[in-house]
């Protein structure tokens, strides 16, 4: 079997390529997808690379099928991923909800493009943030991460798999057209330096296996189909054995566990980066490619005498409330620039509860936000 990583440690990669390589590095061996701009390169790279590492690439008839296939593969014990953009992401929602309820690990990449509906297929946008959290019906917990550099595309993809495996939950990886089509030098870590998490498989004999056990972590061990642990997987609300139930107590236990398992892991699920935040009294909260403009704006603001800082969110959901809260308490002004009408802004506001002055800055014209625009907003009221 071929080596998973490119031979050179230092490579020039497009964001989409780095996501594909990150997936392989994380141990992903099944990819199902349906082409769409600006995510297609992920499929293309994996159609060439998956067979080399003994994995499987399949192009399905649509995004619904792609999502179904990766869930199936994961239930069979193989780490799996799909990649799409807005329209396809909308179509995947029903099956993403299924993955949430059945606690099937998998990674769903959404390379965001501009606009609603067919919108602006080749322009960047960040319009799918709230959808990533709330796109499924019912009330399903989910993890949503956002990348902002090509190196992120590699690293955070690995982490997406790790979180997905550990917490038995689909992880949505949000990229955007800027990151995905930018080429940057990536310095690959040595394989031994990449932390890989695999789902915990049952160690008990099959007779003792309780597939949806309400244990202390909230995360039941997961047996792969065909390994002797025969059990039932269903999108109906189910009891600890996996059988459908409508019994209020069982339903409650089940749903609470789905949320509890994340709550208990918030410390490692909620990933952020800070930049010049130590003494900041004005902060930008940003994510994805826009965080890069924000970082430059912060540097520029400092050079103009404003003590600015950046809180970059990598985990968007579960929303890092406490970490954001800290910033809201520290700063006299917080700016949330986004390429949408203000989605994470709403979350920041929710956490804010009047503590400080939170402003939004939005572009919805398919254009990338520049450092100058953010700087302008930062300095506005000085």
């Amino acid at each position, binding site marked *: 079997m071929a080596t998973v990583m490119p031979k*050179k440690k*230092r*490579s*020039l990669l497009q964001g989409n390529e780095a996501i594909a390589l990150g997936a392989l590095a994380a141990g992903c061996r099944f990819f199902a997808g349906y082409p769409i*701009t*600006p995510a297609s390169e992920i499929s293309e790279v994996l159609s060439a690379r998956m067979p080399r590492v003994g994995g499987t690439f399949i192009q399905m008839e649509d995004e619904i099928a792609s999502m179904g296939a990766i869930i199936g593969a994961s239930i069979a014990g193989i780490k799996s991923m799909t990649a799409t953009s807005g329209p396809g992401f909308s179509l995947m929602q029903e099956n993403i909800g299924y993955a949430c309820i059945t606690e099937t690990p998998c990674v769903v990449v959404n390379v965001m493009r501009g606009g609603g509906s067919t919108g602006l*297929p*080749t*322009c960047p946008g960040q319009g799918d943030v709230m959808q990533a959290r709330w796109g499924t019906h019912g009330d399903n917990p989910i993890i949503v991460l956002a990348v902002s*550099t090509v190196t992120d595309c590699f690293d955070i993809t690995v982490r997406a798999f790790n979180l997905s495996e550990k917490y038995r939950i689909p992880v949505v990886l949000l990229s955007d*057209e*800027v990151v995905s*089509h*930018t*080429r*940057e*030098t990536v310095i690959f870590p040595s394989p031994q330096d990449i932390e890989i998490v695999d789902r915990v498989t049952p160690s008990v004999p099959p007779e003792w296996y309780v597939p949806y056990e309400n244990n202390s972590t909230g995360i039941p061990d997961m047996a792969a189909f065909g390994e002797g642990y025969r059990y039932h997987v269903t999108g109906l609300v189910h009891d600890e054995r996996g059988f459908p139930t409508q019994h209020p107590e069982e339903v409650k236990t089940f749903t609470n566990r789905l949320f509890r398992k994340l709550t208990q892991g918030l410390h490692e699920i909620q990933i952020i980066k800070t930049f010049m935040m130590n003494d900041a009294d004005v902060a930008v909260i940003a994510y994805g*490619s826009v965080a*890069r*403009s924000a*970082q*430059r704006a912060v*540097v520029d603001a400092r050079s103009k005498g404003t003590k600015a800082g950046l809180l970059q969110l990598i985990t968007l959901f579960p929303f890092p409330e406490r970490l954001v809260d800290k910033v809201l308490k520290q700063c006299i002004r917080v700016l949330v620039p986004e390429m949408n009408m203000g989605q994470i802004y709403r979350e920041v506001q929710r956490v804010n509860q009047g503590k400080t002055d939170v402003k939004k800055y939005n572009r919805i014209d398919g254009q*990338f936000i*520049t*450092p*100058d625009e953010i700087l302008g907003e930062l300095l506005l009221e000085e």
Partner: protein
Amino acid sequence: MAEERYEVRLSGSGGQGIIIAAIVLAEAAGVYDKKFVCQSQSYGPEARGGTSKAEVIISNQTIDYPKAIKPDLLLSMNQEACDTYFSDLKTDGLLVVDSTLVHQVPTNRVAAIPFTRIARKEIGKEMVANMVALGAVGVLSQIISLENLEKALLARVPKGTEEINRKALHAGIEAAKTIDLKHLPLLAIDEEEI
């Protein structure tokens, strides 16, 4: 370590191979010269004709904003591209044009080299004008190892075309070497104008 950020924008029309030139430049700087680079392009239907641009940012530090803010060097492979993008150029930036196709230059701080003509006449294939231009950009940017530029080029171009591309690169390098940057005006854009 102070930030040294150098921004290159390559512009031209859809079919002129702007993007591949940018990728080679980025690879030379990023992989071989071991700097930080960031390369992007205008993508989409425009790329099927019309004006297209590709950018390379080269830095000694990780790069935050991934697009060119004020290019240090603008290569324009046709008149429209030159007209569209010139105003973004840094005041002390350098304009490089394909003088085969760009006849009106908006500044005197310009390196005008007939890339297309060189490609057609010296290499015998107009299609490699982009690599001729790349050679020139390599020289004129003064931040890239020409040896690595060649290495990067050879690694990226389709098998069988290595030689012609190498030739084109060197033709560009030679042509650019004849230009004495020191004798150009210091400002490309009159600061007053801005």
